[in-house]
């Protein structure tokens, strides 16, 4: 186990997340992609804490903030999906493309 290996693991998770977020049609599945990307960030944060500056709490706080961000993302995501579903009976990104130019 080394910093490099942990960062490769983090990039692998992050990129699988990118693949999911870009390729999935369902909003819930897109959110799973985002979660997986943040999962990679968790690994990277923990790795930097352990291998770069274990004497300072910054890495740990970063991980804690990312976990919080994940829950916030999830809660808002589900609320938005519910609202969209109620308004338009849709759970797919293609049907909620209001912002697309």
């Amino acid at each position, binding site marked *: 186990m080394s910093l490099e290996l942990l960062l490769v693991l983090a990039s692998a998770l992050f990129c699988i997340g990118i693949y999911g977020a870009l390729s999935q049609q369902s909003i819930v599945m897109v959110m799973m992609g985002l979660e997986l990307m943040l999962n990679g960030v968790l690994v990277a944060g923990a790795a930097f804490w352990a291998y770069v500056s274990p004497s300072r709490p910054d890495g740990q706080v970063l991980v804690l903030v990312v976990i919080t961000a994940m829950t916030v993302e999830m809660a808002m995501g589900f609320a938005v999906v519910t609202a969209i579903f109620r308004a338009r009976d*849709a759970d*797919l990104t*293609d049907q909620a493309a209001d912002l697309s130019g």
Partner: protein
Amino acid sequence: MALTERLVRFAAGRPHLLLVECPGGTPARLAAERHARARGWPRADGPADADVLAVCGAPSTELAAAVELTWDAVAGPRSRISLRGGEDVPDALERAVAALRDVPAQRLDAAGRTPPDAGGDTGAAEMDHGDMNMDDPPGDMDHAEMGHGDMDMDMDLPGGLAMADRAPDRDGLRLDILHLQLGPFLPAWPAGLVVDVTLQGDVVQEAYAYGWAASTASSWWDDAAGPPGRRAAAHLDSAARLLQLAGWSAAAYTARTLRDSVLDDASTPGTAAQVARLGAKVRRSRSLRWGLRDLGALPAERAVQLGISGPAQRADGDVHDRLLQWLTEAWAALNGAAGRGGTRGEQVGGRTASQALIAAIPRLVIGQELAGARLIIASLDPDLADRDVADTIAKPAVAQHG
């Protein structure tokens, strides 16, 4: 293997008993419960939990088919007995144990069964998915018009299941619905009653209640020729079933024991006091009140409009009130109160008391959660062992859309 054989024999000393009651099978069920209790056999929650399937009473053609489905859902080693009256029960239970211990025969039975994936719908009649949407015309699927990119639609799911349809729910969402048939056989369920429900999540959106034809002449509970304590016993039986469903098995056990001692000899002086004690205990239980309060409220004037008489009308309230009413009336009956009409009430406007109760079921269960609906139905406890009931409510008679 010798070890398997010994385990099978050892386990057969305490089989789980699944009682399947057909209308008119009340005396057989009571006898079976009594003997099973004496032997310390537990009651099965459903076919998956059962070793011995006891069919109480004579099933009609439709019920016989449902019995077969239930039997298919019982995992081996298994045995099946048919109880017609109260007398043959001890012998039948002995036969059941002997059949469970007969390892070669059980092996043969197991070898002859097909796994459900191969044979299509072989699940239990009352708890399976085979009845999901079978009657909907194919193509009536909202998803088909939604334009899902490169999704391929294939109508038939593996196992012969159909895809769920959708309908608006109470939260303004269009979600999947599921058609489920409650009954005719469920633990603590009125014998022969069938309630077709449409569920969204576990909320009942539509319900149709009807009975499957019975083959007996009249209700055993209301038989005037019976022993004097029969009215009290009938109420204690209903209360025991509701308590069982409400998850208080200890109180249900007491209620069943009292019911049997009332049937043995209603004039024993201590019994009425014991019934009173049970009533006080049930009344005091805060967890029971939390669970049952405000569920299936049926004010007295509404009950009168619906043609309901008897304890359900006199209780003038929710499931909890109806439970207490049964216990109060059981105590009153033991103290010599005559009581009006039958155990479920009187005939009003050409409809028997049980008919009125069945007709009220959809009104009360729509909008409730599945478990709540079961409690409400148990708190009405219609008795279908009445020829009039069986003849007039043989097909879906009440329909209401929530």
